[in-house]
């Protein structure tokens, strides 16, 4: 091209989705493509800005599980567990034996319930080409009913053990207010056997969905425990050699504030974006799954090398099967002979808690004075840790889909975001989608 030639016409496509459907809470996406190149991707999150960290200050350390459970209606157990572990860490005690097992059981309920909602009601419609589970139910009744059954059984664990389905009231620092009698688990035990069969069927069904050919060499970060698939405790590891105690989290991970979002975005210092959630857990803890999970995963061609986030729907399904089997193991061993909690006295200090929420690593740190009042609270939810990775995925994915019209491209982008089951907040939500196209 000579200097006299006029420049070729620039084409700009801007896709704005003001409210993302089928993600938890409120969010928006902004995507700008110029001349076939993605110039800008922003995932905006309207998170109630750090309300809870401020709200926790000057409250008693005993209140932390009940207060933080309110942060999310889908994963309250995760918040309760991370806060309990942090407070117990600050007091220099740890929960073992039956209480520890019951905590794991409660967490299993949350994984089943949360993954059940996401797999069947939120993510499946993307793959099957429906705008929502409501339309999908007309043609795929059996699939939706499987989801409702699994979700209900997850909720039932919360009701029997947690006192109610959402925001369990039975959890306290040190354990539980009350340990249910063994007979309360009888029906649940039968239901969980059915749920395990449904979950296995779900894995096989999810494997038949159409997956885009999209992979990336992510840094995967999750907990690791020597004996079990991680839920409540362990060290923080990655596939790039990270292996640290949870108390070192803030030395390695830092939150940055981007002006376009209320939520903070985490990065691994010196490394950048990283990936938390089911695919990280699955890849780095594969051998700790049950033999049945391993068999069904292998049968559908799922292995720890999986780096396609669209396949997370399969991995969530495997984790539902794992949670059903693990819940059955805990119930089978359960003999309520011990006190339902241990004594935890405030002695002042800092405590750290990190557990595996359905969506990934959930980090809590508290500084508590000698009276047990909270002086400082820090909470890093999984979605803020994944946010940069979600944006990077969009940046990588969009160039391959520019032949699509804007509606189709928007659909593809939303599906990509939903791979991460982002729990943006439990805020007021209005379903409203607005799209704007600019050409110049």
């Amino acid at each position: 091209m000579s200097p006299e030639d006029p420049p070729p016409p620039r084409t700009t496509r801007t896709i704005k989705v003001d409210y993302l459907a089928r993600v938890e809470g409120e969010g928006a996406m902004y995507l700008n493509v110029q001349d076939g190149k993605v110039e800008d991707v922003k995932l905006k999150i309207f998170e109630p800005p750090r309300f809870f960290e401020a709200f926790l200050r000057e409250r008693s350390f005993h209140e932390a599980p009940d207060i933080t459970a309110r942060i999310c209606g889908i994963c309250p157990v995760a918040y309760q567990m991370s806060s309990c572990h942090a407070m117990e860490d600050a007091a220099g005690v740890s929960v073992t034996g039956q209480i520890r097992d019951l905590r794991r059981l409660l967490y299993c309920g949350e994984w089943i319930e949360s993954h059940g909602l996401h797999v069947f009601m939120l993510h499946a419609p993307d793959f099957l080409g429906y705008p929502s589970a409501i339309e999908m139910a007309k043609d795929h009744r059996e699939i939706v009913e499987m989801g409702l059954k699994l979700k209900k059984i997850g909720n039932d664990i919360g009701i029997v053990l947690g006192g109610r389905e959402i925001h369990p009231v039975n959890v306290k620092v040190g354990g539980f207010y009350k340990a249910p009698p063994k007979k309360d688990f009888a029906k649940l035990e039968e239901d969980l056997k059915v749920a395990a069969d449904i979950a296995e069927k779900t894995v096989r069904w999810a494997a038949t969905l159409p997956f885009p050919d999209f992979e990336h060499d992510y840094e995967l970060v999750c907990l690791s425990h020597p004996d079990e698939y991680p839920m409540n405790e362990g060290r923080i590891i990655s596939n790039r050699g990270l292996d640290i105690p949870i108390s070192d989290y803030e030395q390695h991970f830092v939150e940055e504030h981007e002006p376009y979002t209320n939520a903070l975005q985490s990065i691994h210092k010196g490394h950048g974006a990283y990936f938390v959630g089911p695919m990280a857990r699955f890849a780095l803890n594969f051998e700790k799954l049950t033999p049945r999970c391993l068999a069904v995963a292998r049968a559908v061609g799922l292995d720890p090398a999986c780096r396609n986030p669209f396949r997370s729907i399969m991995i969530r399904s495997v984790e539902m099967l794992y949670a059903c089997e693990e819940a059955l193991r805990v119930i089978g061993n359960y003999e309520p002979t011990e006190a339902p909690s241990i004594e935890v006295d405030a002695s002042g200090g800092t405590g750290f808690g990190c557990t595996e929420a359905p969506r990934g690593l959930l980090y809590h740190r508290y500084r508590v004075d000698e009276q047990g009042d909270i002086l400082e609270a820090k909470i890093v939810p999984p979605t803020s840790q994944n946010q940069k990775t979600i944006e990077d995925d969009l940046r990588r994915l969009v160039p391959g889909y520019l032949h699509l019209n804007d509606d189709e491209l928007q659909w593809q982008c939303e599906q990509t975001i939903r791979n991460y089951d982002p729990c943006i907040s439990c805020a007021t939500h209005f379903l409203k989608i607005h799209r704007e196209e600019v050409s110049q």
Partner: protein
Amino acid sequence: MSRTVVIGVGNPMRGDDAAGRQVARLLAKGCPAGVTIHESTGTPDSLMDLWKDAGAAVLVDASQSGNQPGDIERFDVSTEPLPTSYLHCSTHAFGVAEAVELARSLGTLPPRVIVFGIEGISFEHGAELSDEIEEAVHRAADLVKAECQK
């Protein structure tokens, strides 16, 4: 005689979002005969479980529709959908409106389903029910009672 269920929906820790649950609590003190009263966070599976095999379901939830605070709107959703943007969807874009439509798709919606929306003012985390909405809760309880007699 077919069973009628009343379900108060909302999050008790989000200010006026608790309005529906407050109505359920008021009604539980003097429950009309043949009516069972429940509170729910409004997840579709729990709502569908609560109204399973009922002849009629009356739901009460908070709304943020632009109406005057304390206004109460009644919707008969037995055959028509609820506007999805009407209710304050307390549970992650999958609330009352979606539960009704999902049940309709699956053929499990009770023959008669009435939804009352109480327009709220504040839905802040940790907030109490607004004073203005307290009065509306009592009015809504009377409306629900009358609905159960029909």
